[in-house]
């Protein structure tokens, strides 16, 4: 079993660049330099500069938040609120990575939405039945494989939405966004042990939910 060619260990995406928390000077990374220049101009009142930052990161931030809040409209509201919050607090930016700063704001907004959802539950995940907001398959894609991939995505998305908010947040930040335990602990305001526990329990919960359909994942 351990030598099976089908067994793969998840390879995480490239980790986010290490932040230089104390420096407000431009780093060697051109993207960071660009972001800092746009942020400085936004601080001086240039709305177009701020909107350039929005354009750069709105896709990635929406993709993050919608995995944490499995309701498209509420996720959109959370992302919009996050950008409002970033705009209001431009002067509070202390330096480092603008992208990471925006990520933290979005995670907080998503967690606020999760808490609100607990107080006012809505009917779960009708968007999972609507494929219009999923990326289209390529022209050369095998139809059968495409169908299997879509079904796997649908099942996994449904399972993710059924675990607890905390577990989902931890798994999305770890597996999808590539943050490590310490970064997730800082973003979510809990201890390292709690992050590990949430990821551990979340994984087991996902496996329990998908146990009957694991053949889709085994290839």
């Amino acid at each position, binding site marked *: 079993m351990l030598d099976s060619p089908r067994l793969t260990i998840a390879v995480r995406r490239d980790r986010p660049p290490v932040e230089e928390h104390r420096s407000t000077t431009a780093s060697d990374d051109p993207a960071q330099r660009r972001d800092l220049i746009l942020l400085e101009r936004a601080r001086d009142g240039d709305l177009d500069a701020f909107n350039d930052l929005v354009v750069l990161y*709105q896709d990635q931030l929406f993709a993050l938040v919608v995995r944490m809040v499995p309701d498209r409209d509420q996720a959109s509201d959370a992302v919009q609120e996050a950008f409002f919050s970033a705009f209001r607090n431009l002067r509070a930016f202390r330096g480092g990575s603008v992208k990471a700063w925006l990520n933290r704001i979005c995670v907080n907004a998503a967690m606020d939405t999760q808490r609100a959802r607990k107080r006012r539950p809505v009917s779960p995940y009708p968007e999972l039945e609507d494929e219009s907001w999923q990326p289209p398959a390529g022209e050369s894609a095998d139809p059968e494989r495409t169908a299997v991939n879509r079904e796997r995505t649908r099942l996994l998305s449904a399972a993710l939405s059924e675990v607890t908010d905390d577990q989902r947040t931890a798994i999305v930040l770890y597996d999808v966004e590539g943050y490590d335990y310490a970064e997730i602990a800082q973003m979510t305001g809990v201890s390292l042990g709690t992050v590990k526990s949430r990821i551990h329990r979340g994984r087991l919960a996902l496996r329990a939910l998908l146990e009957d359909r694991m053949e889709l994942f085994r290839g």
Partner: protein
Amino acid sequence: MAEPRATEHATHDLELITSLIGRTAGIARSGPAARLLQSCPDCASLLADLALIAAATHDLPALHRSRDFRLTLDHVARLRPSAWRRLLEVFGSSGDTLSRPVAVGLSTLGLAGLLVATVPTYFAGSAASNAAPEMRTIDGPLVPTEAAGAGGPTIAGSPRDTVVQSDIADPTPHPGSPTGPSPLLVASVVLLTSGVGLGVGRILVRRARGNHTPFGVV
């Protein structure tokens, strides 16, 4: 045989298994996790499934947004805080559902108490200074005088007038009478200080934690 095996698997530390997920170096070849995987087929199967799920999660397609999140001029106009909101921010952020209302309430009570404690004293002092010239006309000729106050009036007239006028106009407490600020004044200052202190302290704590704030890391 299946039952004892299932029971034994239930006692295994599954966190050892899940902790292997995400390591790019591959499965550890020694240690408690490796021994567990070699001795328990259920653990090995669990690891395989968890790895597949983690890989699928990693590869989840990004979902398309249906809205453009750029800010408009209308947004900016609404986002600029009014003077009132800037004042409220002294007492904490809008996310403080308990501490901010408490801070605002304490500060308001403190300000109200200060007003109640100090305004009557002010008007009493004014009334005394206005009454003094009338008293001077009773027995003695009208003479120009300085305004009655703590410095003591210089009044021309009969000694009797002087005594009466100084008694009325001079607010200086006499020996033996109660001294110091009123209890209401003290309580008001305490309330006001508590309210402002609570709000400012809350802000400082949140910044020190660096969590759940929209601000960058200090």
